[in-house]
């Protein structure tokens, strides 16, 4: 084999061989599980001695999902969470990217610090904020006390708990939006700015009439994808609130976890997963449509 010259006939074989590992992984652990989920969502699965007993139950699981109060709370909270968190991340990320792009000295230092949250485990971010938010001795309580102010019950009160979780997500993912937007700003054509400078344009006019219009495709795509990815949120909620108080911070990933794993209701959990996957798929289709409109390639 080693001595054989590359002939036309070798191409298809190597084409398949090189893509085989990726195809195999994606089929066995990407496509098959989804089919498995779909099958389980129409059944009840009971385990005894390592063997599964399946019983077909038709649409019963999906009917149960539709009236599940936890799932409803999960969908509502996740939607609120996604919209507010992504809005915050995009606004802050854009301001920081704009400012960093103007800095001459220390840009790399800022960028190194700003990347940190992306590389921290979600569970550690949860742990960090569990300590910071702590009502009795958290850092915020201490700071407020230094100014003679009353502590805030960040995680104990329903509305505040959802706000707190959103703030943590903004802390976690603003750096990611920052990086993408900064890369976008740095790749804008410089001659436009030079021309604007010659014309004596103010920084505000420059922002509104030059930077924002040219950045629009990057902004739209980054926001759309962050919005879809916000549906993955799990780690921080698991550690900070466990979905509580009540159902105030119940998010869909956490509901699936509770139903499927904690309560061992495999059929219901699978039907929920299928429902969430359909929602994410629909959002993704919208995001792709947005990208096509934003960047007619």
């Amino acid at each position, binding site marked *: 084999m080693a001595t054989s010259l590359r002939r036309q006939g070798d191409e298809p074989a190597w084409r398949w061989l090189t893509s085989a590992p990726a195809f195999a992984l994606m089929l066995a652990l990407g496509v098959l599980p989804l089919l498995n989920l779909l099958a389980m969502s129409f059944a009840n699965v009971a385990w005894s001695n390592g063997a599964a007993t399946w019983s077909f139950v038709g649409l019963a699981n999906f009917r149960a999902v539709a009236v599940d109060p936890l799932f409803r709370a999960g969908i509502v909270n996740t939607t609120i969470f996604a919209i507010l968190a992504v809005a915050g991340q995009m606004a802050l990320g854009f301001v920081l990217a704009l400012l960093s792009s103007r800095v001459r000295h220390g840009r790399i230092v800022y960028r190194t610090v700003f990347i940190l949250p992306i590389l921290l485990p979600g569970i550690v971010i949860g742990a960090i904020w569990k300590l910071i938010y702590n009502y009795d001795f958290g850092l915020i309580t201490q700071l407020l006390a230094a100014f003679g102010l009353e502590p805030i019950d960040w995680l104990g009160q329903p509305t505040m708990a959802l706000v707190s979780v959103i703030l943590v997500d903004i802390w976690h993912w603003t750096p990611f939006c920052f990086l993408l937007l900064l890369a*976008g700003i740095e790749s804008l054509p410089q001659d436009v700015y030079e021309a604007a400078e010659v014309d004596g344009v103010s920084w505000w006019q420059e922002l509104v009439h030059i930077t924002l219009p040219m950045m629009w495709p990057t902004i739209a795509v980054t926001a759309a994808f962050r919005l879809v990815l916000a549906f993955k949120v799990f780690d921080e909620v698991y550690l900070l609130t466990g979905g509580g108080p009540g159902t105030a911070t119940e998010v869909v990933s956490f509901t699936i976890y509770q139903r499927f794993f904690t309560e061992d209701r495999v059929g219901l959990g699978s039907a929920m997963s299928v429902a969430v996957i359909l929602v994410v798929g629909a959002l993704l289709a919208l995001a792709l449509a947005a990208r096509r409109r934003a960047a007619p390639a």
Partner: protein
Amino acid sequence: MSVRRAAIGTHATLIVAALVILVPTVWVIGAGFRTQISLISGAIAFKPNLASFSQVLWSRGSDFVLNFRNSFVVAILSTAICLAAGTLGAWSMHRMGWPRWVPHLFLGWTMVFQMLPPVALAGAWFTMARGAGLDDTLAGLVLAHATLNLPMALWLMGNFVRDVPRELVEAACIDGASTPMLLRRIVLPLLAPGLAATGVLLFVFSWNEFAVALNLTSKHTATIPVGIAKYAQGFEVQYTQMAASSALSIIPAVLLLLIGQRYIVKGLTAGAVK
């Protein structure tokens, strides 16, 4: 408004943002060096104390060293598998002359897959692993992480693969290089920086992954994030142990950030710019 004052304002804003990131992180690392009493008393000043760290690392009831070993094995093996499958796959998709619909369909599918909540997949993986006798083994988690990170490996390596000059490949083919020879002698060396950038990110993301690890592991296969979460549960949250174990767990990420900042930025933004 003078240019100088604007520059000061810019730096001031950026410094505040950097502090918002650094102060909570450092404060929590500091909490790992405190006793529970010193932490709860709320005193700002404290005498550093290694009790929580030694409890996390060496006490009988703690599995942290085992968790560390499991995380290391899973992250290394899943990164190796993912990087190999991703690099070969990316080369195949972009450079091996597939009919155009094949890469479109496959890479499009991996993008959809990337967006799915891992918890939704964990249920099916759990059931499948149990059927295959792989439940509660590191092998199951290794394969799960390799699959979870494969879309990212394919996109990132795809970006680096497309930068390999076509003339070079054609020249090698004319000289009679076989596909394996071409890949090993010419493509792989050119991809080295890309492999480093992608490998670092894959390692960190496997190291950090929680949702799937939580559901596919038990006591003796648990990874670090699962171990940290244990301190936050139960009747009494063990705050200082939670802080100490968190501090230990971020060592690899911080080291990689300090050494390979450029690679990480390259990896994180590679897909976005083009």
